[in-house]
Protein backbone atom coordinates (compact mmCIF):
# COMPACT_ATOMS: atom_id res chain seq x y z
CA UNK A 1 0.00 0.00 0.00
CA UNK A 2 1.17 3.50 -0.71
CA UNK A 3 1.83 6.01 2.03
CA UNK A 4 -1.29 7.93 1.05
CA UNK A 5 -3.65 4.98 1.34
CA UNK A 6 -1.98 3.66 4.51
CA UNK A 7 -2.42 6.95 6.34
CA UNK A 8 -5.91 7.45 4.93
CA UNK A 9 -6.98 3.94 5.94
CA UNK A 10 -5.62 4.35 9.45
CA UNK A 11 -7.31 7.71 10.00
CA UNK A 12 -10.62 6.38 8.67
CA UNK A 13 -10.35 3.36 10.93
CA UNK A 14 -9.63 5.58 13.92
CA UNK A 15 -12.56 7.84 13.04
CA UNK A 16 -14.81 4.80 12.75
CA UNK A 17 -13.73 3.48 16.15
CA UNK A 18 -14.27 6.95 17.63
CA UNK A 19 -17.31 7.79 15.55
CA UNK A 20 -18.76 9.84 18.41
CA UNK A 21 -16.30 12.59 17.41
CA UNK A 22 -17.77 12.94 13.93
CA UNK A 23 -21.30 12.69 15.26
CA UNK A 24 -20.63 15.50 17.72
CA UNK A 25 -19.65 17.77 14.85
CA UNK A 26 -22.84 16.94 12.98
CA UNK A 27 -24.85 17.50 16.14
CA UNK A 28 -23.22 20.91 16.56
CA UNK A 29 -24.09 21.76 12.96
CA UNK A 30 -27.72 20.85 13.68
CA UNK A 31 -28.07 22.69 16.99
CA UNK A 32 -26.31 25.82 15.72
CA UNK A 33 -28.63 25.94 12.70
CA UNK A 34 -31.70 25.38 14.83
CA UNK A 35 -30.75 28.40 16.96
CA UNK A 36 -31.40 30.80 14.08
CA UNK A 37 -35.20 30.55 13.98
CA UNK A 38 -35.15 31.47 17.68
CA UNK A 39 -32.92 34.43 16.94
CA UNK A 40 -34.66 35.87 13.86
CA UNK A 41 -38.19 34.52 14.33
CA UNK A 42 -39.92 31.64 12.57
CA UNK A 43 -41.38 33.59 9.60
CA UNK A 44 -41.06 31.37 6.55
CA UNK A 45 -39.92 34.05 4.13
CA UNK A 46 -37.27 35.44 6.49
CA UNK A 47 -35.83 31.97 7.09
CA UNK A 48 -35.98 31.07 3.40
CA UNK A 49 -34.11 34.29 2.60
CA UNK A 50 -31.22 33.52 4.97
CA UNK A 51 -31.18 29.70 4.80
CA UNK A 52 -28.22 29.38 2.42
CA UNK A 53 -26.04 31.76 4.39
CA UNK A 54 -26.99 30.28 7.76
CA UNK A 55 -26.18 26.75 6.62
CA UNK A 56 -22.85 27.86 5.23
CA UNK A 57 -21.85 29.78 8.34
CA UNK A 58 -22.82 26.97 10.71
CA UNK A 59 -21.11 24.38 8.48
CA UNK A 60 -17.92 26.46 8.63
CA UNK A 61 -18.12 26.71 12.40
CA UNK A 62 -18.80 22.98 12.74
CA UNK A 63 -15.85 22.13 10.51
CA UNK A 64 -13.72 24.55 12.53
CA UNK A 65 -14.53 22.68 15.74
CA UNK A 66 -13.28 19.43 14.25
CA UNK A 67 -10.14 20.91 12.72
CA UNK A 68 -7.81 20.79 15.69
CA UNK A 69 -8.28 17.01 15.78
CA UNK A 70 -6.48 16.62 12.43
CA UNK A 71 -3.02 16.94 13.95
CA UNK A 72 -3.36 17.68 17.66
CA UNK A 73 -3.68 14.06 18.82
CA UNK A 74 -0.85 12.92 16.56
CA UNK A 75 1.25 15.78 17.85
CA UNK A 76 0.65 14.91 21.50
CA UNK A 77 1.29 11.17 21.24
CA UNK A 78 4.43 11.38 19.09
CA UNK A 79 2.84 10.02 15.90
CA UNK A 80 3.63 13.29 14.14
CA UNK A 81 7.37 12.84 14.76
CA UNK A 82 7.15 9.43 13.14
CA UNK A 83 5.04 10.68 10.23
CA UNK A 84 7.61 13.38 9.49
CA UNK A 85 10.24 10.62 9.53
CA UNK A 86 8.55 8.20 7.13
CA UNK A 87 10.88 9.30 4.37
CA UNK A 88 7.85 9.90 2.16
CA UNK A 89 7.03 13.46 1.08
CA UNK A 90 5.22 15.11 3.99
CA UNK A 91 2.65 16.88 1.74
CA UNK A 92 1.39 13.43 0.69
CA UNK A 93 0.89 12.45 4.33
CA UNK A 94 -0.87 15.79 4.90
CA UNK A 95 -3.14 15.25 1.93
CA UNK A 96 -4.10 11.79 3.21
CA UNK A 97 -4.97 13.20 6.63
CA UNK A 98 -6.96 16.08 5.13
CA UNK A 99 -8.83 13.60 2.93
CA UNK A 100 -9.70 11.57 6.00
CA UNK A 101 -10.87 14.73 7.77
CA UNK A 102 -13.07 15.70 4.87
CA UNK A 103 -14.55 12.21 4.57
CA UNK A 104 -15.31 12.04 8.29
CA UNK A 105 -16.59 15.59 8.86
CA UNK A 106 -17.18 17.32 5.51
CA UNK A 107 -19.23 14.51 4.02
CA UNK A 108 -21.50 14.01 7.07
CA UNK A 109 -22.14 17.77 7.10
CA UNK A 110 -23.11 17.68 3.43
CA UNK A 111 -25.40 14.71 4.05
CA UNK A 112 -27.39 16.39 6.82
CA UNK A 113 -27.49 19.84 5.22
CA UNK A 114 -30.64 19.14 3.12
CA UNK A 115 -32.49 18.02 6.25
CA UNK A 116 -31.50 21.19 8.08
CA UNK A 117 -32.43 23.19 4.98
CA UNK A 118 -35.97 21.86 5.35
CA UNK A 119 -36.23 23.36 8.83
CA UNK A 120 -35.19 26.72 7.38
CA UNK A 121 -37.74 26.50 4.55
CA UNK A 122 -35.14 26.65 1.80
CA UNK A 123 -37.06 26.79 -1.53
CA UNK A 124 -36.81 23.64 -3.65
CA UNK A 125 -34.57 25.32 -6.23
CA UNK A 126 -31.89 25.82 -3.60
CA UNK A 127 -31.20 22.22 -2.61
CA UNK A 128 -29.10 21.04 -5.52
CA UNK A 129 -26.86 24.16 -5.59
CA UNK A 130 -26.49 23.95 -1.80
CA UNK A 131 -25.25 20.36 -1.89
CA UNK A 132 -22.96 21.00 -4.85
CA UNK A 133 -21.58 24.18 -3.29
CA UNK A 134 -20.86 22.29 -0.07
CA UNK A 135 -19.28 19.43 -2.06
CA UNK A 136 -16.93 21.85 -3.80
CA UNK A 137 -16.40 24.17 -0.83
CA UNK A 138 -15.83 21.86 2.14
CA UNK A 139 -12.61 20.32 0.72
CA UNK A 140 -11.19 23.86 0.65
CA UNK A 141 -12.38 24.31 4.23
CA UNK A 142 -10.49 21.17 5.29
CA UNK A 143 -7.38 22.07 3.27
CA UNK A 144 -7.10 25.66 4.49
CA UNK A 145 -8.06 24.61 7.99
CA UNK A 146 -5.26 22.07 8.03
CA UNK A 147 -2.71 24.88 7.66
CA UNK A 148 -4.19 26.62 10.68
CA UNK A 149 -4.44 23.39 12.66
CA UNK A 150 -0.76 22.70 12.00
CA UNK A 151 0.24 26.24 12.94
CA UNK A 152 -1.44 26.22 16.36
CA UNK A 153 0.15 22.91 17.47
CA UNK A 154 1.76 23.43 20.85
CA UNK A 155 0.07 26.76 21.58
CA UNK A 156 -1.61 27.58 24.85
CA UNK A 157 -5.07 28.27 23.42
CA UNK A 158 -5.21 26.24 20.23
CA UNK A 159 -8.94 26.16 19.51
CA UNK A 160 -9.80 29.83 19.91
CA UNK A 161 -6.61 30.87 18.17
CA UNK A 162 -7.39 28.54 15.27
CA UNK A 163 -10.70 30.29 14.64
CA UNK A 164 -8.99 33.68 14.56
CA UNK A 165 -6.45 32.42 12.02
CA UNK A 166 -8.75 30.45 9.78
CA UNK A 167 -12.15 32.16 9.71
CA UNK A 168 -10.97 35.26 7.77
CA UNK A 169 -9.53 32.90 5.16
CA UNK A 170 -12.92 31.20 4.78
CA UNK A 171 -14.70 34.39 3.69
CA UNK A 172 -14.24 33.78 -0.07
CA UNK A 173 -15.69 30.26 0.20
CA UNK A 174 -18.56 31.62 2.25
CA UNK A 175 -19.28 34.39 -0.27
CA UNK A 176 -19.40 32.13 -3.29
CA UNK A 177 -21.01 29.19 -1.49
CA UNK A 178 -23.91 31.37 -0.36
CA UNK A 179 -24.10 33.14 -3.71
CA UNK A 180 -24.49 29.80 -5.49
CA UNK A 181 -27.62 29.07 -3.45
CA UNK A 182 -29.01 32.60 -3.79
CA UNK A 183 -28.50 32.67 -7.55
CA UNK A 184 -30.65 29.55 -7.88
CA UNK A 185 -33.37 31.15 -5.75
CA UNK A 186 -33.72 34.13 -8.09
CA UNK A 187 -33.72 31.87 -11.12
CA UNK A 188 -30.16 32.45 -12.23
CA UNK A 189 -27.53 29.81 -12.98
CA UNK A 190 -25.30 28.93 -10.05
CA UNK A 191 -22.63 27.33 -12.22
CA UNK A 192 -20.38 30.44 -12.28
CA UNK A 193 -20.17 30.44 -8.46
CA UNK A 194 -19.68 26.69 -8.40
CA UNK A 195 -16.79 27.00 -10.86
CA UNK A 196 -15.22 29.68 -8.67
CA UNK A 197 -15.56 27.30 -5.69
CA UNK A 198 -13.92 24.57 -7.78
CA UNK A 199 -11.14 27.03 -8.60
CA UNK A 200 -10.62 27.76 -4.91
CA UNK A 201 -10.41 24.03 -4.28
CA UNK A 202 -7.75 23.57 -6.94
CA UNK A 203 -5.77 26.49 -5.50
CA UNK A 204 -6.07 25.07 -1.99
CA UNK A 205 -5.04 21.61 -3.23
CA UNK A 206 -1.94 23.13 -4.80
CA UNK A 207 -0.78 25.31 -1.94
CA UNK A 208 -2.19 24.03 1.30
CA UNK A 209 -0.39 20.64 1.59
CA UNK A 210 2.97 22.40 1.24
CA UNK A 211 2.16 25.13 3.71
CA UNK A 212 0.78 22.54 6.13
CA UNK A 213 3.88 20.39 5.75
CA UNK A 214 6.09 23.41 6.46
CA UNK A 215 4.00 24.19 9.54
CA UNK A 216 4.23 20.59 10.75
CA UNK A 217 8.01 20.53 10.32
CA UNK A 218 8.40 23.59 12.50
CA UNK A 219 5.92 22.12 15.00
CA UNK A 220 8.01 18.98 15.61
CA UNK A 221 11.29 20.89 15.67
Amino acid at each position, binding site marked *: *MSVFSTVLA*RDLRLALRQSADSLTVVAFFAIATVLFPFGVGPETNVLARIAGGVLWVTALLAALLSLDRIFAVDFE*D*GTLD*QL*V*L*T*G*APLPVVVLAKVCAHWLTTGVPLILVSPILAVTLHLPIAGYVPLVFALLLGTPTVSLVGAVGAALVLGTRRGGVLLSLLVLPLYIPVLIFGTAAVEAALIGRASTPMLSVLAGFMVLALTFSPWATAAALRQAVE
Partner: protein
Amino acid sequence: MVRRMDGGTGEFQAGDFQAGSFSGAGLACRRGGRMVFSGLAFTVAPGGALVLRGANGSGKTTLLRLMAGLTAAVAGQLAWDNRAIDDPDAHAGRLRFIGHLDAIKPALTVAENLRFWMSLWRGESRDTVITDALDAFDLRRLAGFPARLLSAGQRHRLALARLVVAPAPLWLLDEPGNALDESSLAALARAIAAHRARGGAVVVASHGAAFVDGGSTLNLGDFAPTDDAHWSEQ
Protein backbone atom coordinates in the same frame (compact mmCIF):
# COMPACT_ATOMS: atom_id res chain seq x y z
CA MET B 1 12.98 -16.29 19.92
CA VAL B 2 16.48 -15.03 19.76
CA ARG B 3 17.33 -17.30 16.91
CA ARG B 4 14.34 -16.09 14.91
CA MET B 5 15.32 -12.49 15.53
CA ASP B 6 18.73 -13.30 14.20
CA GLY B 7 17.33 -14.32 10.88
CA GLY B 8 15.70 -17.71 11.39
CA THR B 9 12.66 -16.76 9.34
CA GLY B 10 14.63 -15.00 6.69
CA GLU B 11 12.70 -11.77 7.26
CA PHE B 12 15.55 -9.91 8.86
CA GLN B 13 18.45 -10.92 6.68
CA ALA B 14 21.29 -8.54 6.27
CA GLY B 15 20.94 -6.83 2.93
CA ASP B 16 17.48 -5.64 3.84
CA PHE B 17 19.24 -2.38 4.26
CA GLN B 18 22.39 -0.73 3.05
CA ALA B 19 24.59 -0.42 6.12
CA GLY B 20 26.55 2.79 6.44
CA SER B 21 28.45 4.96 8.82
CA PHE B 22 26.80 7.95 10.44
CA SER B 23 28.77 10.95 11.55
CA GLY B 24 28.48 14.58 12.45
CA ALA B 25 30.93 17.43 12.89
CA GLY B 26 30.85 20.90 14.37
CA LEU B 27 27.27 20.50 15.49
CA ALA B 28 25.65 23.24 17.52
CA CYS B 29 22.06 23.54 18.62
CA ARG B 30 19.86 26.09 20.38
CA ARG B 31 16.70 25.38 22.31
CA GLY B 32 14.50 28.16 23.60
CA GLY B 33 17.11 30.77 22.81
CA ARG B 34 19.83 28.95 24.72
CA MET B 35 22.87 27.24 23.20
CA VAL B 36 22.59 23.60 24.30
CA PHE B 37 25.85 22.30 22.85
CA SER B 38 28.38 23.35 20.27
CA GLY B 39 31.39 21.96 18.46
CA LEU B 40 30.02 18.45 18.83
CA ALA B 41 31.37 15.65 16.64
CA PHE B 42 30.65 11.92 16.55
CA THR B 43 31.00 8.86 14.33
CA VAL B 44 29.13 5.57 14.40
CA ALA B 45 30.51 2.84 12.15
CA PRO B 46 28.28 0.14 10.65
CA GLY B 47 27.57 -2.29 13.48
CA GLY B 48 28.69 0.32 15.98
CA ALA B 49 26.93 1.84 18.93
CA LEU B 50 27.12 5.28 20.46
CA VAL B 51 25.84 5.93 23.96
CA LEU B 52 24.92 9.53 24.77
CA ARG B 53 25.43 10.54 28.36
CA GLY B 54 24.93 13.75 30.24
CA ALA B 55 22.93 15.43 32.96
CA ASN B 56 19.31 16.46 32.43
CA GLY B 57 19.23 19.43 30.10
CA SER B 58 22.57 18.59 28.53
CA GLY B 59 20.83 18.02 25.20
CA LYS B 60 20.65 14.24 24.72
CA THR B 61 17.13 14.37 23.34
CA THR B 62 17.94 17.46 21.31
CA LEU B 63 20.95 15.72 19.76
CA LEU B 64 18.91 12.62 18.91
CA ARG B 65 16.21 14.74 17.28
CA LEU B 66 18.90 16.62 15.41
CA MET B 67 20.36 13.30 14.23
CA ALA B 68 16.90 12.29 13.04
CA GLY B 69 16.54 15.53 11.10
CA LEU B 70 13.61 16.73 13.18
CA THR B 71 15.54 19.65 14.63
CA ALA B 72 17.78 21.91 12.59
CA ALA B 73 21.34 22.55 13.72
CA VAL B 74 22.59 26.10 14.12
CA ALA B 75 25.95 24.99 12.80
CA GLY B 76 27.64 21.80 11.67
CA GLN B 77 26.83 19.00 9.28
CA LEU B 78 25.58 15.44 9.52
CA ALA B 79 26.96 12.87 7.10
CA TRP B 80 26.03 9.38 5.93
CA ASP B 81 28.97 7.38 4.58
CA ASN B 82 30.95 10.62 4.71
CA ARG B 83 28.55 12.33 2.35
CA ALA B 84 26.74 15.35 3.74
CA ILE B 85 23.05 14.75 4.39
CA ASP B 86 21.12 17.37 2.46
CA ASP B 87 17.86 15.51 1.78
CA PRO B 88 16.04 15.10 5.09
CA ASP B 89 13.48 12.71 3.59
CA ALA B 90 16.15 10.34 2.27
CA HIS B 91 17.81 10.41 5.67
CA ALA B 92 14.50 9.80 7.44
CA GLY B 93 13.98 6.75 5.23
CA ARG B 94 17.01 5.01 6.67
CA LEU B 95 16.44 5.60 10.36
CA ARG B 96 14.11 4.50 13.12
CA PHE B 97 13.54 6.93 15.93
CA ILE B 98 12.11 5.99 19.32
CA GLY B 99 11.46 9.07 21.42
CA HIS B 100 9.79 9.78 24.75
CA LEU B 101 6.37 9.63 23.13
CA ASP B 102 5.30 6.19 21.98
CA ALA B 103 3.09 7.13 18.98
CA ILE B 104 0.59 4.44 19.90
CA LYS B 105 -3.08 4.83 19.03
CA PRO B 106 -5.17 3.56 21.96
CA ALA B 107 -8.16 2.79 19.72
CA LEU B 108 -6.19 0.39 17.49
CA THR B 109 -5.18 -3.10 18.55
CA VAL B 110 -1.58 -3.91 19.33
CA ALA B 111 -1.18 -5.73 16.02
CA GLU B 112 -2.90 -2.93 14.07
CA ASN B 113 -0.54 -0.38 15.58
CA LEU B 114 2.45 -2.36 14.35
CA ARG B 115 0.88 -3.11 10.99
CA PHE B 116 0.34 0.59 10.30
CA TRP B 117 4.00 1.44 10.77
CA MET B 118 5.14 -1.60 8.86
CA SER B 119 3.09 -0.76 5.78
CA LEU B 120 4.13 2.85 6.04
CA TRP B 121 7.81 1.95 6.06
CA ARG B 122 7.85 -1.12 3.83
CA GLY B 123 4.85 -0.49 1.62
CA GLU B 124 3.35 -3.81 2.73
CA SER B 125 2.55 -5.63 5.93
CA ARG B 126 3.16 -9.31 6.56
CA ASP B 127 1.60 -11.10 9.49
CA THR B 128 4.65 -13.34 10.04
CA VAL B 129 6.84 -10.27 10.53
CA ILE B 130 4.31 -8.71 12.90
CA THR B 131 4.10 -11.92 14.90
CA ASP B 132 7.89 -12.18 15.11
CA ALA B 133 8.13 -8.60 16.31
CA LEU B 134 5.44 -9.18 18.92
CA ASP B 135 7.24 -12.34 20.02
CA ALA B 136 10.54 -10.52 20.33
CA PHE B 137 9.03 -8.20 22.92
CA ASP B 138 6.67 -10.74 24.48
CA LEU B 139 3.49 -9.04 23.26
CA ARG B 140 2.00 -11.83 21.19
CA ARG B 141 -0.79 -12.74 23.59
CA LEU B 142 -1.86 -9.04 23.57
CA ALA B 143 -1.94 -8.79 19.78
CA GLY B 144 -5.72 -8.54 19.50
CA PHE B 145 -6.27 -6.18 22.42
CA PRO B 146 -6.84 -2.46 21.97
CA ALA B 147 -3.65 -0.62 22.89
CA ARG B 148 -5.49 1.50 25.46
CA LEU B 149 -5.47 -1.55 27.77
CA LEU B 150 -1.67 -1.71 27.85
CA SER B 151 0.42 -0.76 30.85
CA ALA B 152 3.19 1.82 30.52
CA GLY B 153 5.81 -0.91 30.16
CA GLN B 154 3.77 -2.79 27.58
CA ARG B 155 3.22 0.38 25.56
CA HIS B 156 6.92 1.01 25.58
CA ARG B 157 7.61 -2.53 24.39
CA LEU B 158 5.11 -2.04 21.59
CA ALA B 159 6.95 1.13 20.56
CA LEU B 160 10.22 -0.82 20.55
CA ALA B 161 8.66 -3.63 18.51
CA ARG B 162 8.36 -1.09 15.68
CA LEU B 163 12.12 -1.27 15.36
CA VAL B 164 12.06 -4.83 14.09
CA VAL B 165 9.09 -4.74 11.69
CA ALA B 166 10.97 -2.73 9.10
CA PRO B 167 14.78 -2.91 9.04
CA ALA B 168 16.67 0.35 8.75
CA PRO B 169 20.40 0.93 9.04
CA LEU B 170 20.23 3.51 11.82
CA TRP B 171 18.43 3.32 15.15
CA LEU B 172 18.08 6.42 17.30
CA LEU B 173 16.78 5.50 20.74
CA ASP B 174 15.93 7.97 23.47
CA GLU B 175 16.03 6.30 26.90
CA PRO B 176 14.77 2.99 25.52
CA GLY B 177 15.24 1.23 28.86
CA ASN B 178 12.69 3.38 30.69
CA ALA B 179 9.74 1.52 32.25
CA LEU B 180 11.13 -1.86 31.17
CA ASP B 181 11.46 -4.88 33.46
CA GLU B 182 14.49 -7.16 33.33
CA SER B 183 13.24 -9.62 30.73
CA SER B 184 12.20 -6.72 28.47
CA LEU B 185 15.62 -5.13 28.88
CA ALA B 186 17.11 -8.43 27.78
CA ALA B 187 14.80 -8.47 24.75
CA LEU B 188 15.90 -4.94 23.89
CA ALA B 189 19.55 -5.96 24.28
CA ARG B 190 18.98 -8.91 21.92
CA ALA B 191 17.25 -6.71 19.35
CA ILE B 192 20.10 -4.20 19.43
CA ALA B 193 22.73 -6.94 19.21
CA ALA B 194 20.95 -8.53 16.23
CA HIS B 195 20.65 -5.15 14.53
CA ARG B 196 24.36 -4.48 15.00
CA ALA B 197 25.28 -7.97 13.84
CA ARG B 198 23.60 -7.11 10.53
CA GLY B 199 25.67 -3.97 10.23
CA GLY B 200 23.15 -1.57 11.71
CA ALA B 201 24.26 1.44 13.73
CA VAL B 202 22.68 2.50 17.03
CA VAL B 203 22.70 5.75 18.93
CA VAL B 204 21.26 5.49 22.43
CA ALA B 205 20.61 8.20 24.98
CA SER B 206 20.63 6.45 28.31
CA HIS B 207 21.50 6.63 31.96
CA GLY B 208 21.91 2.89 32.35
CA ALA B 209 22.69 1.41 28.93
CA ALA B 210 23.23 -2.12 30.23
CA PHE B 211 21.63 -3.22 26.97
CA VAL B 212 24.47 -2.08 24.72
CA ASP B 213 27.69 -4.08 24.56
CA GLY B 214 30.81 -2.13 23.80
CA GLY B 215 30.30 0.90 21.62
CA SER B 216 31.64 4.33 22.36
CA THR B 217 30.35 6.94 24.75
CA LEU B 218 29.71 10.59 24.07
CA ASN B 219 29.45 12.81 27.12
CA LEU B 220 27.38 15.83 26.23
CA GLY B 221 28.70 17.76 29.19
CA ASP B 222 31.96 18.09 27.23
CA PHE B 223 30.23 20.15 24.57
CA ALA B 224 28.26 22.51 26.75
CA PRO B 225 29.08 26.00 25.59
CA THR B 226 31.31 27.86 28.00
CA ASP B 227 30.25 31.18 29.35
CA ASP B 228 32.73 32.90 27.04
CA ALA B 229 31.09 31.40 23.98
CA HIS B 230 27.79 32.86 25.13
CA TRP B 231 29.06 36.35 25.34
CA SER B 232 31.06 36.30 22.15
CA GLU B 233 27.83 35.56 20.28
CA GLN B 234 26.73 39.04 20.94
